[in-house]
């Protein structure tokens, strides 16, 4: 996984709430068995509309998605994160995320940042007025910055460290193999297995 420390880019104002993962990537695009190649499925239904924000030339190449509340609700499909990353997005800002989406995003190095709703509205207005506005997402300082505005955000220390180091969760867990083995020795024997029966 790539390290994430500080990223500066331009924003795409996605003025919609409740953008569920079925909208981010419809089910028909989930049939691939690889991790890449999902960009063409990103917001597939909406992208057919020339007025859709990703089709507007002033936002070409912008890589920070500024979304309304409840972004990424619904299905657990990690393909939603892969599609956003494949398309080029480095961070998503929203007042509220679906829990599983946020988890998936932070596992995979797509920074999902919660900002107050009023600040998201302000940022939308600012970016719409000037799409060239540079926006900085600073994981080190836990802060989003644009113009004179500085917006602190929360992220737990562990996740921040893992993202900054670009570390693989599985490798980290396997360092504690003896704890797992000890736990397995004390697990009740009546717990079911999928084998017998």
């Amino acid at each position, binding site marked *: 996984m790539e390290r994430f420390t500080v990223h500066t880019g331009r924003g795409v104002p996605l003025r919609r709430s409740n953008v569920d993962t079925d909208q981010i990537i419809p*089910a028909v695009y989930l049939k691939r068995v690889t991790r890449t190649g999902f960009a063409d499925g990103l917001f597939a239904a909406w992208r057919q509309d020339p007025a859709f924000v990703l089709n507007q030339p002033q936002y070409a190449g912008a890589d920070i998605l500024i979304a309304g509340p409840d972004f990424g609700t619904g299905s657990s499909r990690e393909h939603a994160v892969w599609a956003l990353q494949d398309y080029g997005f480095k961070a998503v800002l929203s007042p509220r995320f679906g829990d599983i989406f946020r988890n998936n995003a932070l596992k995979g190095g797509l920074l999902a940042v919660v900002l107050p709703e009023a600040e998201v509205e302000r940022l939308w207005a600012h970016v719409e007025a000037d799409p060239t506005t540079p926006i900085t997402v600073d994981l080190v300082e836990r802060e989003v910055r644009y113009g004179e505005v500085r917006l602190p955000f929360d992220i737990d220390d562990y996740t921040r460290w893992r993202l900054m180091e670009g570390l693989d969760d599985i490798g980290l867990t396997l360092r504690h193999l003896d704890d797992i083995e000890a736990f397995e020795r004390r697990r009740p024997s009546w717990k079911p297995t999928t084998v017998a029966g």
Partner: protein
Amino acid sequence: MGETETAVRGRAGVGRTMADKIWEEHVVRRADGEPDLLYIDLHLVHEVTSPQAFDGLRLNGRRVRRPDLTLATEDHNVPTVGIDQPIADPVSRTQVETLRRNCAEFGIRLHPMGDRNQGIVHVIGPQLGLTQPGMTIVCGDSHTSTHGAFGALAFGIGTSEVEHVLATQTLPQYKPKMMAVTVNGTLPPGVTSKDIILALIAKIGTGGGQGHIIEYRGEAIASLSMEARMTICNMSIEAGARAGMIAPDDTTFAYLEGRPHAPSGRAWEQALDYWRSLPSDPDAVFDEEVFLDAGSLSPYVTWGTNPGQGAPLDGVVPDPSTFSDPIERAAAERALQYMDLQPGTPLRAIRVDTVFIGSCTNGRIEDLRAAASILRGRKVADGVRVLVVPGSMAVKEQAEAEGLDEIFRAAGAEWRSAGCSMCLGMNPDQLAPGQRSASTSNRNFEGRQGKGGRTHLVSPLVAAATAVTGHLSAPSDLT
């Protein structure tokens, strides 16, 4: 339990919730400033969210740590007719074949298409008796919350986490907050657990449970069957919650006893002792509390494009201009445009051309019995296509043994084999653009059942009554 727990929880002397208890039982490792490492008792796998996880294992030369705690099934892509034929869609076929190869390579038990135990992942776990109280259960599928109906801690995970569980049988997790939803009173006739959960989501919104595990309790919940409890826990995710749970009780134990993977003999007694210790302590503290009165509920249907946009069937399509919150208003406007509905239209006046009865929300035997009780001796309305898709092959077998298939066929409905089917339209069962369905599934998102398709979420009783009249209806509307 030890000092660590008191220190971590910081609420010494306060009772514990059921989720607290199960969580503590499963902590493999706890360290300051890190998520807890939780042990996973059961990992369910299906073809859509697993291929990249198995690939990751191969790339890193890792094996599946506990194939004996892992179970795979084919559900999302499988066709529900002609299941003795190879899957026609080459991409779906590749995905299913990839799962078969991965399960063979890593030694995982798989129930393939056509197998007696094949079915929707959240239907087969309980049916096999693998879903038991006090367990931690995960699956690369958000509706894993279904299994919480047994008093298990069950939640959906992404593909990277699937890989993590395959490799380590654990997951690093921060503990969610707890929400109690208490449903008191008695459900009126014709009102079901689907209506409880649709009413709850309409009340608290699709973000209402965000960051929480919901525990459902109260006399109306305790009086529900296991099937009905699963329907409620299933849609916890539509309320934004990570998981839903219901305390295990005699109904739970009776359902489990004698199932293939349920403990027996002395082990059953040991298990019972543990299961009886699980319900939340009377003085347990929840971060949020919500109350519903079952007696005031009526059949619920959705009118919009998220599961929170629902209303009693007796109502009308709302007028977005009356919504005070600007974001909600915009969402409602968009939804009505997509759904092609006018404010003020009575919900009963909405005509459908498709009825879907199935899914992990309402594809169990009791749901099929409910639908059949309405369709018995009646005919499906002209021009309405009705798909009845059992949640598993075992449900199919039982329904056929009870003659339900005959009732559905005689009414003019299509009787299918098991799978997710039109719940998400990854297989050929899809709505065409502009078509409108009454569906017993859990998501009414734009295009969920097929591009341009329009979905109204309903209970099996409402779905069956709607099939008869051709417009959204309750059984009480039938003569």
